[in-house]
């Protein structure tokens, strides 16, 4: 973490909370999708709003085309999650199976995958921090859009945010997708309090 938002102890504890949550989520995900799901160690950083686009670029690759699903979480810790998929990942649908041809299958799948991944990890975090968490329905922020243009037209009303980055990969597949949790500065205090209670 690149500033003084958290003490070393707080940082370690938060990292551990996410590690445990991810580990538990991985099991359920594998059972649900009937596929092994590889998850990276969550990376926790503090970013400034003007760093966001550059950070996405670095993460996903300059000039990549992506589809992004957005979802709000709230009730105690408040923020938004972004699930970022490469546009050419159209075969997620075939990988995960779908029975209905009249539906926009790929959109349906990325929404469902995003909801499950974002929910599974964050539920585990909330459980350890002994708080509640609720989720809005996920919605598609953009489709097949240049990574540089994902946030065009947005005026960020936040300065700092806690960002947690997790990389996912389904077995036998080379392409990854990304889960990013953003917790704006107001909510970081709540996390710190919860962590302190945990360290108690």
């Amino acid at each position, binding site marked *: 973490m690149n500033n003084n938002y958290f003490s070393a102890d707080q940082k370690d504890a938060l990292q551990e909370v996410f590690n445990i949550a991810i580990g538990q989520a991985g099991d*359920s995900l594998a059972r649900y999708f009937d596929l092994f799901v590889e998850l990276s160690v969550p990376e926790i950083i503090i970013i400034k709003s003007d760093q966001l686009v550059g950070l996405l670029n670095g993460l996903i690759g300059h000039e990549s085309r992506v589809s992004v699903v957005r979802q709000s979480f709230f009730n105690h810790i408040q923020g938004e999650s972004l699930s970022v998929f490469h546009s050419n990942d159209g075969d997620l649908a075939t990988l995960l199976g779908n029975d209905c041809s009249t539906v*926009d299958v790929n959109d*349906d799948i990325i*929404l*469902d995958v995003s909801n499950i991944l974002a929910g599974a990890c964050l539920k585990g975090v909330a459980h350890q921090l002994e708080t509640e968490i609720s989720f809005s329905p996920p919605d598609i922020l953009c489709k097949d859009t240049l990574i540089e243009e994902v946030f065009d037209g947005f005026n960020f009303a936040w300065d700092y945010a806690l960002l947690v980055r997790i990389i996912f990969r389904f077995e036998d597949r080379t392409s990854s997708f990304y889960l990013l949790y953003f917790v704006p500065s107001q909510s970081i205090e709540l996390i710190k309090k919860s962590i302190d209670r945990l360290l108690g």
Partner: protein
Amino acid sequence: MMPKDKLSLLNSIVERINVGVLVIDSEMNIILWNVFMEIYSGRKASEVLGKNLFDCFPELPVAWMKKKIEGVFLFENNSFSSWKQRPYVFNFRHNRPLTGHIDHMRQDCVFQPIKNQTGKVEKVCITVSDMTDHFIYESKLIEAMSSLKSLSRIDGLTGIFNRGHFERCLIEEWKRAKRYKEDLSYFLLDLDFFKKVNDTYGHMAGDEMLRLTARIIMREIREIDIAGRYGGEEFAVILPHTDQQGAVAVAERIRQTVSEYIFKYEDQKIRMTLSTGVSFFRQDMNKYEEMIAEADLALYQSKENGRNCVTCFDPSLDSKE
């Protein structure tokens, strides 16, 4: 335990709320079915309670829904379905028989876990929200956007392409002809003595005449041809994949139809004619404007030759200048 009166209050809210509420157990048996669900499914709670959801409604997307419900049990978390991706889950009619132009109620569904006292998920509650109005508003918005887009291409008076859009088409066709070495023809049409019509019969008559000319042009050109109003009483046509002979045939047909037409305006019969200049794409051209300039010269020649005729560009015309 909750006091009885509060329980009965909650019960009547769930029953009467304008959202479908149903609850199923892990065997997919229906254990709650509110009034909304009764009304739209046409099935009374008494008919479906205790029965398997998919036996009662075999038209449901079974595999998808089972997976969804399995996820709710497994992750102990909400799952969602939006009308934007899946127009409806339950095959319900909507309540806009007059103003709705679609078959089924658009729906957003939420699948939420219901835990027992030990914290284990035992049931799933499914809520069904009617999103038909949203769907209709969004359709209207999309229609409005697309008609705005088309309005920006259309000449208000005649209803054919305006000059801006027409020139964009010409640039595209010119590039295509250049790249693939294809034939391309172009002609300009100008109504003869149009100013006199305006002066004698008034601008209303002139406008009617422009509309009529546009209609005749649209009727006589082929499906692949593109026509536009170039300005004033001048029109232009792009003819892709068309050589000199083909272009002249089309131009001649328009000239003849217009000249034979008896235009009636407030009990007066008005005859009109037009002059046409035709040009052809050559590989040695560097700019599309050259085609326009050559058609312009040929048109000038038609006027010189007494009007009501079709003239093809001839390089010797150029040198006469």
